[in-house]
């Protein structure tokens, strides 16, 4: 016999190192030959899309396209450190540092343009498609390329730094506000529980994630799918067997992770509610996308068969045992 149920999981997640720990990102922006923009930043790309998102933030701030930017990263002999690609912190923290560096770069470019265009001040200057333009008299304009030629013996560059604001919790009471900002999400799933085998099958899933602003919706969906799949694995089958610090099942034949056949289509919903301390409102979502899935699945199992599971993973053996126990107790 198979029984169906629906469950919902909600989470909120504090991004960054938190708890007053120093959380600093830095970036340098440089005008390169040919008028290209170099962003030197210790941001690490591990597949999450940091490189794309950082270039997008830089392009937005400097009024150029993504193709006009070279991101030079992952080598702290060439660039300042931006902390780890961890704690869901790169988009918010390093994105902010890049935005600040690019804003400072605007001022540098305005100063040079003022001199070259023979202007009285930098007031009214704007950046537009790789040019500095006097907004009320656009005939006065000079391209980044021209500036790079004129100043080829001088480095035009600017730095930016972002220090996240977090406070320490009270060590006695454990109370306080250790993180900033938070990100929110909700997941609903429908499952089918096979009462004879203990196998839980996912039938449907809807997943909503608050991103502040989605810098790149496509990549964001990829993170949501990935987080969902990873959480599905850890809810239903991933069971790391440790003995005296040694992993006993360090084989993919003994430690199962989801395959394409275990995964289902997830209806992803991106919620945009811009965070005012964030670069263009964008918050990180890397880790939180994993969190509400397990509670949603467990609630759905409860809704289907009336049994509360409190230990992961919910393997068929464990679920069968719980079903038998419930039968005996009734």
């Amino acid at each position, binding site marked *: 016999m198979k029984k169906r149920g629906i469950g919902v999981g909600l989470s909120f997640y504090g991004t960054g190192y938190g708890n007053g720990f120093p959380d600093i990102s830095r970036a340098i922006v440089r005008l390169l030959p040919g008028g290209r923009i170099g962003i030197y930043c210790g941001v690490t790309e*591990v*597949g*999450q*899309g940091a490189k794309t998102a950082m270039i997008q933030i830089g392009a937005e701030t400097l009024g150029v396209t993504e193709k006009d930017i070279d991101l030079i990263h992952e080598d702290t002999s060439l660039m300042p450190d931006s902390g780890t690609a961890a704690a869901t912190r790169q988009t918010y923290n390093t994105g902010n540092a890049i935005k600040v560096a690019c804003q400072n770069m605007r001022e540098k470019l305005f100063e040079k343009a003022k001199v070259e265009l023979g202007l009285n001040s930098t007031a009214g200057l704007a950046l537009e498609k790789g040019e500095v333009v006097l907004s009320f008299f656009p005939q006065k304009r000079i391209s980044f390329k021209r500036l790079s030629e004129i100043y080829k013996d001088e480095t035009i560059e600017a730095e930016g730094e972002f220090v996240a604001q977090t406070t320490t919790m009270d060590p006695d009471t454990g109370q306080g506000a250790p993180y900033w900002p938070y990100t929110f999400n909700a997941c609903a799933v429908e499952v089918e529980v096979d009462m004879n085998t203990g196998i839980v099958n996912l039938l449907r899933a809807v997943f909503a994630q608050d991103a502040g602003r989605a810098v790149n919706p*496509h*990549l964001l*969906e*990829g993170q*949501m*799918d*990935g*987080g*969902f*799949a*990873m959480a599905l694995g850890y809810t239903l089958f991933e069971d790391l067997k440790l003995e005296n610090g040694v992993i006993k099942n360090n*084989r*993919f*034949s003994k430690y199962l*992770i*989801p*395959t*394409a*056949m275990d*995964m289902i*289509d*997830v209806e992803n919903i991106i919620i945009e509610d811009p965070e005012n301390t964030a670069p263009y409102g964008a918050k990180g979502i890397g880790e939180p996308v994993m969190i509400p899935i397990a509670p949603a699945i467990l609630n759905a199992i409860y809704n289907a068969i009336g049994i509360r599971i409190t230990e992961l993973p919910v393997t068929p053996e464990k679920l069968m045992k719980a079903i038998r126990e419930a039968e005996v107790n009734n």
Partner: protein
Amino acid sequence: MVNINFTVNGKPYEISIDENMRLIDVLRDELGLIGTKEGCGEGECGACTIIMDGETVNSCLVMGFQADGSNIVTIEGLEKDGQLHPVQRAYMEAGAVQCGFCIPGMVLSTKALLDKNPSPSDEEIREGISGNLCRCTGYNKMLIATKKAIEYMKGE
């Protein structure tokens, strides 16, 4: 040592290898084709997938000498005249690539699937790539990529 003759990505090779060498090591260490990745080394993850005489195999489970006389395609062999294969292009455009480690194998499995079955159902696509583990993407963008690739291949 044994001598083997085989074709890799359209190029004939005659090389002498150690009998104990696995095919993945022949490809990576002898031919320098490092697009083929080793994940588990025991046939579970599919990162080392190659196409051998039209079938996908885990090159970590094949001995080098068994490749004698075979025709092999690795990820390096998909590009033609500087143009990405439709499956590669579709993967890129669909955002189906995150860390990238599974991708060479995944792309080859997708290609092999479409070579045999040019219009697979969702279930058939999932099954076709189920021998390739991916920890990053949750596979769904790969389904979208595969459907895009089907369209591109129809247009060719």
